[in-house]
């Protein structure tokens, strides 16, 4: 048997069992437990290395299978006439019945998961509209009540809110927030205006990760373009960015 599939390809021992059942076209209500157990075990043996965390669940199932198999081997108390029918019918006595129930239930949810996947894919192809800022309906912006400190706290607030919002899925189209070339211009303008800027001042804590990366790339690009130069007075000291006077 070719064992080129990895354990990670399966969502768990039940998934692996279902795979073996389907592959061998086994009737789930009448599982040849000994055969299935052998296949299951040889599958686990075929794996070159076992991730212990992942494998423990698979090993537990192996133990269950072996236990069922051994119980199946015990001589039946029942008479010979009934035994024949027993193969096709699952009753309380059948050691396999609990496993079969679990497999059938798991299979049901596996199927629903596939439908959910289709739904998810469909949803990824449709778009909502960006909600309208409706505050203009009550236009009474009242400046006298607002101080500069208010603006600062409002600003830090929304940046924080934005970070939280970005964690949630949104299918609204928002334009690329920070194109690199734009950030290059901004960083350059700031250096031009201020002549000398502390490197770390460019990295506000409130900025998103992508903004930080873009800013960093922008600074690197400006250094490469010979527009700015950076120096550090002492090891581990602050890095300062200054304008490189054009030749």
């Amino acid at each position, binding site marked *: 048997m070719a064992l080129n599939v990895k354990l990670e390809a399966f*969502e*768990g*021992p*039940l*998934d692996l069992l279902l795979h073996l059942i389907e592959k061998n076209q086994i009737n789930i209500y009448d599982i040849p437990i000994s055969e299935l157990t052998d296949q299951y075990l040889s599958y686990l043996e075929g794996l070159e290395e076992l991730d212990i965390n992942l494998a423990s*669940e698979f090993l537990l*199932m192996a133990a269950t299978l072996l236990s069922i198999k051994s119980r199946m081997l015990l001589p039946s108390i029942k008479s010979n006439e009934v035994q024949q029918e027993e193969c096709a019918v699952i009753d309380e006595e059948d050691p396999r019945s609990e496993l079969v129930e*679990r497999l059938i*239930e*798991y299979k*049901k*949810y*596996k*199927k*629903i*998961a*596939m*439908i*959910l*996947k289709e*739904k*998810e*894919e*469909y*949803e*990824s*192809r*449709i*778009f*909502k*509209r*960006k*909600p*309208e800022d*409706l505050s203009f309906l009550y236009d009474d912006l009242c400046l006298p009540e607002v101080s500069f400190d208010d603006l600062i706290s409002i600003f830090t607030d929304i940046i924080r809110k934005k970070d939280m919002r970005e*964690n*949630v*899925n*949104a*299918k*609204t*189209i928002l*334009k690329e927030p920070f194109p690199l070339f734009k950030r290059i211009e901004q960083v350059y303008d700031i250096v031009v205006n201020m002549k000398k800027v502390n490197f770390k001042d460019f990295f506000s804590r409130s900025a998103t990760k992508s903004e930080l990366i873009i800013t960093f790339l922008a600074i690197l690009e400006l250094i490469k373009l010979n527009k700015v130069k950076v120096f550090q007075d002492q090891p581990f000291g602050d890095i300062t960015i200054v304008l490189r006077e054009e030749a």
Partner: protein
Amino acid sequence: MEKERVKGILEGILFAAGDPVFLDDLANALEISKEEILDIINDMKQEYNSTNRGIMISEVGRKIRLTTKPDVYPYIEKLFKPQIRSQLSRAALETLAIIMFKQPITKAEIESIRGVNVEKTLNSLLEKNLICEVGRMETPGRPILYGTTQYCLEYFGLSSIEELANLKLNEQGD
């Protein structure tokens, strides 16, 4: 109010809102019953079906929304290069499927169905706001009970979990 006028107002409201709007809120704003609104929305669904329309109306949970039709996607993609959101893993989908149909449900129950540890998966679903804690079971240890959120229905574009159950049954029919 005239039915055609209601359609126009509904379209305008949903357009401006962007996000799905609660059926109850629409009924209040228009001062007509929810049944009437649902009836009109069914009419609108037919009308949006027409080739010359690029948007459609649908129910997600107890909310109504307007979205683009999927067949416009290639053009939107061409023009805006929208970010593709990351899709849920199979483990997440299976766990969600179980919670949807068995809620409220504990972690232990989910694990006994899936046969694997679901701790990490649950945390990631909680973070994504697809599930939430809906209470505690009154048994020793008082384990947390999980359920799906309204956002979960919106995420999959489902009007209800029953819709999903029906879909599943139909599939099994053939």
